[in-house]
Each structure stands twice: as structure tokens, then as C-alpha cells.
């Protein structure tokens, strides 16, 4: 079974039970004249965690920001190629980017709670998208999101205090709660633990494990052990190219590419 799965992933890329949530084909990104990504072909499997690893500046952030069209915000950034979500092309002029971002949430490297109360931080998305008809439903959404983000017990008595007053790890979980408050299909996480201590990191990793039951997750990380712990698939980027993409176990035990091997074992450079 493992064997077949591997073959499938490396080949045309599909296992019987697995559904491709997002797939990119020949995805290239330019910052002005500088090309940051070269022809990336990558499939993200539904309800799985995909880890993206690679040295600094190799284009991991650039790649995941393509998936929810966040690169639109950057003036000189140009994205070419195809990005399909559930088989539907989203890299076109007339795609509703707000709708895409509603379906594909994002958690950033540095926690960025709004300077509002904890409650308002989580209620922000539902309010904007009109997900709650009345206060009661909104309360439930906020509570559930905070519970899912494993933050509820720590903040339930002080929902009216500013979100910026929480600790770094709590802030990051608040941002995760904010992202899942509108019930997205995919969550993109760009180094979500880079500013956190081991305990907070462990909490968030646990959380990711829990969240993958209902969401498709992409996580960028510099920690090999984290990638190995939380992900099922791993992609290795180098200088804007996707060098290798495979099952996490395979990547860490027996990668096909010498460069991947060197990077994982820390002999890179």
C-alpha cells in the first residue's frame, strides 16, 4: 500500500482515497524583473498537512501567498501559471479574491492580532461576511473558534481585553482562531511557530493535528523536526524551484534528491 501510494504521488499524483484540494501548474512569480518562483507543480491533498521546507529566501512564503492571492497586495509582484482550487482556476483577473481568501485562510509568521478586544478579533471575519444573524450565533462562533484554537480556557474570562495584551503564543493561537472563525477550507501557515517557545509550539502542533480533520493545511517551517512531526507530505524548495515533493516519511528517511538529503541532514551549503 505504501509503495503504491508513493508511486502514485510521484507519478500523476493521485491516490484513490485522496482528493486534491489545490493544485498549481507551471506557477512562476516575479518581483519586478526578478523571478522568485520557477514553474512550480504541486498538489495539496485535502485534510492532510503539507509542509514546505527550504533555505531562507527560496520562495516558500511567496508560494503560499499565491494560494490565497495575497501577492496581489504587493505592487510589483506578478503571478503566472495556473492555480486550481477544487479544480477551478483562481489565478484569473475576474476571480473574486475576497471570496478566495474567505475559503483559504492564513496565519502569519508574526502574530498580528488587531488592536481590538479578543472577542472582536475573532468576531471580525464573521461580522464582515455576515455569518451571524444575531449576537447569540456570533457568541457561539467566537467560542467555538477559540475552543478549536485551544485558547478558550485561557481567555474566556477576559474576552473584552485587547488581543495585543496576550503572550506571543496566545496571540498566535488567537490569529488561528481568527482564521478558522469563518470556517475556511484551507489554512495556510507561514512559520507559525517561529516566534514561540517550545511549549507554545507544542500546543500549536497539537492544534494542527486536530485541525487537519476538518481543514487542509499548508505549513511553512524551518524546523525539520516540526515538518516531520506534523505533516504527511513535504515539499523542498531551493532557489525558487520545487526540488522534491513526496510523503514526509519518504523525504526524511530516503529522499530521491541529493540536495534534499543534504538539507535535511544539515549538511547544506
Amino acid at each position, binding site marked *: 500500500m505504501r509503495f503504491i501510494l508513493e508511486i502514485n504521488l510521484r507519478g500523476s499524483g493521485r491516490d484513490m482515497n485522496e482528493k486534491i484540494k489545490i493544485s498549481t501548474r507551471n506557477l512562476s512569480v516575479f518581483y519586478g524583473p526578478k523571478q522568485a518562483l520557477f514553474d512550480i507543480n504541486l498538489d495539496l491533498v485535502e485534510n492532510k498537512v503539507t509542509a514546505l521546507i527550504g533555505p531562507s529566501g527560496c520562495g516558500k512564503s511567496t508560494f503560499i501567498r499565491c494560494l490565497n492571492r495575497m501577492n496581489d497586495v504587493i*505592487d510589483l509582484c506578478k503571478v503566472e501559471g495556473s492555480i486550481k482550487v477544487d479544480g477551478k482556476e483562481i489565478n484569473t483577473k475576474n476571480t473574486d479574491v475576497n471570496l478566495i*481568501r*474567505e475559503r483559504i485562510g*492564513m496565519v502569519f509568521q508574526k502574530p*498580528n492580532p*488587531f*488592536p481590538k478586544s479578543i472577542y472582536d478579533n475573532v468576531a471580525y*471575519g464573521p461580522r464582515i*461576511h455576515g455569518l451571524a444573524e444575531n449576537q447569540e450565533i456570533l457568541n457561539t462562533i467566537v467560542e467555538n473558534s477559540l475552543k478549536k484554537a485551544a485558547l478558550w480556557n485561557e481567555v474566556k474570562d477576559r474576552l473584552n481585553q485587547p488581543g495585543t495584551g496576550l503572550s506571543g503564543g496566545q496571540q498566535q493561537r488567537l490569529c488561528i482562531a*481568527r482564521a478558522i472563525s469563518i470556517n475556511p477550507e484551507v489554512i495556510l501557515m507561514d512559520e507559525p511557530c517561529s516566534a514561540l517557545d517550545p511549549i507554545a509550539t507544542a500546543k500549536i502542533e497539537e492544534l494542527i493535528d486536530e485541525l487537519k480533520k476538518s481543514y487542509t493545511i499548508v505549513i511553512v517551517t524551518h524546523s525539520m523536526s516540526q515538518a516531520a512531526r506534523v505533516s504527511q507530505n513535504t515539499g523542498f524548495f531551493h532557489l525558487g524551484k520545487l526540488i522534491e515533493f513526496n510523503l514526509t516519511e519518504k523525504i526524511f528517511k530516503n529522499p530521491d534528491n541529493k540536495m534534499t538529503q543534504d538539507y535535511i541532514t544539515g549538511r547544506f551549503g
Partner: protein
Amino acid sequence: MNLVILSFILFFSLSFFFIGKARVLRLANYNIKNLNSLPEYYGYYLAAWCALPALIILFFWSIFELSIIKIFVLSDFKLDPTIDDNKLNLIFSQIVSIAEKKFSGTIPQNLIPYVEKFIALNKIIELSKFAVLFSAIILSLIFAYRQILKNIKARESVEKIIRGLMFLCATLAIFTTFGIVLSLLFESIKFFTSVSIFDFLTGTNWAPGRAFVRDASVQTANVENVFGAIPLFWGTTFIAAIAMCVAVPVGLFSGIFLAEYSSRKFRKITKPLIEILAGIPTVVYGFFAALTVGPLFRLVGEKFGLEVSSESALAAGVVMGIMIIPYVSSLTDDVINAVPNSLREGSFAIGATKSETIKKVVLPAALPGIVGSILLAISRAIGETMIVVMAAGLAANLTLNPLEASTTITTQIVTILIGDQSFNNPKTQAAFALGITLFFFTLFINVIALSIVKKFREKYE
């Protein structure tokens, strides 16, 4: 004369810079490693010791020189009780100008002995100045030279001297402010001895012209109820409010547009263009208001059957508002730019549109800064004089009608002080009372504004 002395001191300290440098090098057998500091520092040290004490003495000497001479020269006149201080000053300035051969007209013979006394005294003082300065230079040089020979840490000493100089400049600025406030305060206290502070702050009739009557008996009768400053406070607030009605919406929206919507290129061109508005001299705004906007409003008003005086609070306020736009727009733009991009991205990433993001995340985050900038603009509006002088008139009306003439604190200060005025009647002193009221008013607003802005900065830095 002082100029000669100054260049002399400068020359001295320059030469001692080189002397000190050379001397200390020789002392170290031309090996810098033997010294505590680079040889230049010994040069600076010597030069500073040469110049600074002399300069300080020169400074104080120049301040007190004339008044000391004055005391001696005028000692005879002081005995005469019919001569008051004003007259004494007049006599002394006559003596000085005769001595400097600048006196025009026939020289009053009775002053000649005093002129001679003045010239003689002046010579003595001049000579002793030379002597004192020279010995000061010599003494401090000897001291400094000895220090150098001891191979002191000249680098640290020079550092201390530089720090002292900077401190001096900083305190100078502060003392100037204090001086201004004190002079305002003294004159206003004089004013408040003849007019009660309560009448001043609560009276509704402002007509200082009527207090300016030479007849003493009439004056006391009139002083009572002509210095009510309420109309002025009202005019000031009213015109500033009209100005803010123009400046806040326009400034705010253009600031938001510049910061959030315009392309970088557009912003680079437009922002300085808007800021030009703040650089136009206020007189120019003044006649723009008086000659263009005022008559225009009148014309339009007449079409609607309204009676508009050609000098109106509205015209002054609107033009003042235009002038203040850049204060609001530039600061708003800066403050919005200071809101970290990560907040915007966080909002976009959740599917919010640009305007939702601005309305719900950026503006609330920037609000304290924006409020601060508006307060700063208000204090600018309150202090503005020229436009009001030219466009709003001088009538101290207590009215809610923006189409009538109105006046402000600053305008009244100007009209009171224009022309030759003696400084010891309540009318002139009223200007100082107004000045200090204005000072505290704007100080209050500025302190609040700055503390709000500061809190905002702390939050994001």
C-alpha cells in the same frame, strides 16, 4: 571694539591649538602611543581653555558695561525728585548719542560735563576690559598647559567641554521661552491690577479703545466694563471651528487617499504639492480671503437674499481651513503609514475588502494619531493672525452668525499694539493678558495632542 577682541581671542585659540598639538607631540617623543589621547585633542583642549573663559567674561561684561556706566553718569540726576525713570533713560540716551557724535540738533549745554564723564568712564572700562580678558586668557592657558604636560586624558575633557556647550545651547532655548512667558506674565499682572481677572474672563463687552482716555477720572470709570474678553474667545473658537470644518474632512480624506489608495508615484508627487499649501505666507492667504473669498461669499449670499458683510468670520475661517489642510492630511498620512502592514494583511487574509480593512482596522488603529494631528491643527488655527486681521474684521461681536464680522484674540493683540503705544496703560497691557491667555490655551491643546500622539507611537514602535 568687541569685534576686534573677538577676532583676537579666536586668533589666540587657533594658534594655541597648533602649539598644544606640537608641544604634546614633542613631549611624547613623537610617538602617539605614549599619549593618552590623539595630539589633536590636546590642541582642542588648549584652544577651548583659551577661548571659553574669555568669551564668558566678555559676554557678561558687555551686558553690564552700559548699566554700570549709567549708574555713575546719572548719579547727579537721581537726586532730583522731579525726574522720573523715563526721563532718566531719555537723558542717558542723549548723552550716549552725543558721545558717539550721532546727536542731531543743538547739543544741550548742561549735558556736556556728563558727556565728558561718560567718555572718560568708557575709556577706563574699555581698558580694564582688555586687562581682565588678557589676564584671564593667560591664567587659563597656564592652567591648561600644565594639565597637558601632565598628559591628562584630553579626549575625555574635550568631550566634557563639547557636552557643556550643547547643554548651554539647549538651556538657552528653554530660558528664552521662560523669558517670554515671564515678560508676558509681568505685564498681565500689571493689567490685572487695574482690571479684575474675573471681569476679563467673563465680560462680554470688548472695547479697549474707550479705556484709552488721558483723563484719569474718566479712565477709572471706563476700565470696569470694556475689557470683557468673551467676544474674543468666542470669535477665536468660532473661526477655528469653521476652519476645522473645512480642514478636517478634506485633510482626513486626502490623507487616507494618499496613504491607502494612491500609487506610490502619485503620492510622491501629490504630497509635496499639498504641503505647499502650508508654505504659502499667511499674508497671501489674507488677501486671498479679503479680496477673493470674502466678496465671493457676499455675492453668493446676496443671490440668496442674505446679508453678508464683506469681512466675515466665514471667509476667514474657510481660508484658514484651506491653509491647515496639509497639517491634517500629512499627519494623517504619516500616522496611517505607521500602522503596521501586518494588520492590513491580517484583515485581507480573512477576506475583507480594502475599504472594510481601512474602516475597521486601519482607522481605529490610527485614530489616536489622527486625533493628535487634528488637535495640532486646531492650535495652529487658534494662533493664526494675518488671515483674520485681513478678512474677519475687528468688530468684537458676540454672534453665532458666520456671515458677520468677527474678531480673534490674536487680531486684537495686533490692533492694540500697532503704532506708537506707551506701555503703561491698561489698553496696551490688555494685549499681554490676551497673549498669556492664548499661550496657555494653545499650550494646553498641544500638550494633550502630543501626549496622544506619543501614546500612539509607543503602541507601534
